[in-house]
């Protein structure tokens, strides 16, 4: 990665020189990038600043960038008074996120391996049909999906929130691509040694595909953590309510002051921020390899 970036920088390097035009171009470049960066970051700082303001400082004109008497801890307590189950929602979101990500990794790895390395009747038809589902926007099948989940008795259950998220045509496609990059000779020699396909997948194919799996996993985690419409429709009762709905409920009650809503949003955002800081390169790789998210 570092080497790749190095060569990219070299590739696009301007010819050396310190003439006035060059310096001016540099200054303009930085100015634009910095203004843009401020616009990107300002909503986050506004969220944090509002989250720590006392009620009296919310609706005042002119606005205050920084609270005069910040009360972050008081507002956290006030948030939990207003929304006593907020921690529960966070835990629910974590359960759904972990369940979907692990489930998808297992189910889609198996399927991708099957399509990548095995000949069986109907293979190309099944694969084409699976990929064909990619053109269907999820929103367009929301109604029948709800009907299916209701008729399976999965409304307001973790199973209902997790199950539909673990089957993925998109993951199947990506992981199959990754598995096809691995030299088949490695797998064949293991087969001669008497390993069965599951052992080969576990001990050879998956370890060699870790970068692709990781890039794919962080995208899935991000999408599951932030999901809103689907949980809103199939599991909007307190025991299985996820945190995005918890925030929407705060927002929908007109008497909830904005500092508490901002505090809730901030708390819900922190886990993704930490994950992003730790695994940034996988996020970026995930996006640039895939160009899609769902």
């Amino acid at each position, binding site marked *: 990665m570092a080497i790749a970036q190095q060569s*990219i920088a070299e*590739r*696009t390097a*301007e*010819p050396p020189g310190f003439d006035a035009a060059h310096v001016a171009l540099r200054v303009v*470049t930085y100015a634009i*990038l910095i203004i843009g960066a401020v616009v*990107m970051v300002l*909503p986050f700082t*506004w969220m944090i600043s509002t989250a720590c303001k006392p009620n009296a400082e919310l*609706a*005042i004109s*002119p*606005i205050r960038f920084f609270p005069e008497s910040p009360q972050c801890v008081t507002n956290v307590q006030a948030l939990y008074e207003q929304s006593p189950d907020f921690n529960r929602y966070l835990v629910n979101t974590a359960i759904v996120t972990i369940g979907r990500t692990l489930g998808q990794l297992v189910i889609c790895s*198996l*399927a991708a391996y*099957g*399509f990548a*390395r*095995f*000949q069986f*009747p109907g*293979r190309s038809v*099944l694969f084409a049909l*699976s990929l064909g*589902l990619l053109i269907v*926007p999820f*929103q*367009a*099948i929301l*109604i*029948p999906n709800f*009907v*299916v989940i209701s008729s399976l008795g999965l409304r307001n259950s973790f199973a209902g929130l997790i199950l539909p998220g*673990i089957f*993925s045509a998109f993951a199947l496609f990506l992981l199959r691509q990754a598995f096809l990059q691995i030299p088949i000779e490695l797998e064949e020699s293991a087969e001669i040694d008497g390993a*069965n*396909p599951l052992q080969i997948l576990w001990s050879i194919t998956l370890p060699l595909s870790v970068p692709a799996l990781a890039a794919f996993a962080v995208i899935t985690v991000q999408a599951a953590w*932030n999901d*809103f*419409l689907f949980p809103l*429709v199939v599991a909007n009762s307190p025991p299985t309510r996820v945190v*995005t709905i918890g*925030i*929407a409920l705060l*927002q*929908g009650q*007109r008497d909830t002051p*904005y500092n508490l*809503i*901002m505090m809730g*949003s901030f708390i*819900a*955002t922190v886990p993704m921020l930490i994950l992003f800081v730790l695994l*940034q390169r996988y996020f970026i790789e995930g*996006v*640039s390899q895939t*160009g*899609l*998210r769902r």
Partner: protein
Amino acid sequence: MTLFLRPLGATPRARRRALWGLALVLPNTLGLLIFFGIPVLMTFGLSLFEWNGIRPPVWNGLQNFERMFFEDPLFWRALGNTLRLALFVVPANMALALGVAVLLNQRLRGRNLFRTVYFLPVITSTVAASVVWTWIFQPSYGLIGIVPGLGEMQWLTRPDLVLIPIAVVTIWQRIGFDMILFLAGLQNVPRILHEAALIDGANNRQRFLRITLPMLSPTTFLVLILNVIAVFQVFDQIYIMTSRTTPGGVGGSATTLTFMLYQAGFVRSEFGYASAISLALFLIVLAITVVQIRLQRRWVYYESEAG
């Protein structure tokens, strides 16, 4: 038994492997069938019924479509709003993302830091982002007031303005995503082309217009399709930003097709009518994608074709 297994392969090993293959793909295929395949077919079926989810469905032929096209003005308003939102979001977002990507595709101090900052909104939930931007667009007390003249406007309640805040959140959340795609595309532009052009005395602008843009066109095409599809799927922003005032905007001014089908299905329990709207949404997205794929031959340059 052997006779039954014959179609699976000629040798015992081939048959064994065929069974393994089937077993491996079975769970995902079944899941896709239950949660995607069957629902697609059900959308067609349900759109021909009147059904509130409790009493048995009643066949009503094409009445849902008649209502949608001829009786319900909200459908055309929602379609218009969706297209207007696309008009706000897609060009602005693509131009900004490309601009940032081009600037970042140089040897720059702090290049990775900029990339991180521009990407941050992508990992934030649309719900949290929309909540923050609702507060930013608040009349009198919103951060938007630091721009002279913008602070006193009723951004979220005026029908002629409400799509603007929604477009702004959508763009803010998407720039980083498209920037990464453009950066990946820019890195595939062969260096030798730029060198040759430099030798021929081409300036920056000429190289950008004659080399970078044409060589980038496959990426631009991908980003365009993803952007249009994303706009048709916008929901969270509308739900959050209009929930304190009038859900879907005053007079449906912020209602898009996706929001309309949500309200029909899950607020009013009109599952048949909501399915008809779903079908319209699906077919419109499909049609736009097909048209774009057709048109791409006129402007997208694929290196391998040129040989």
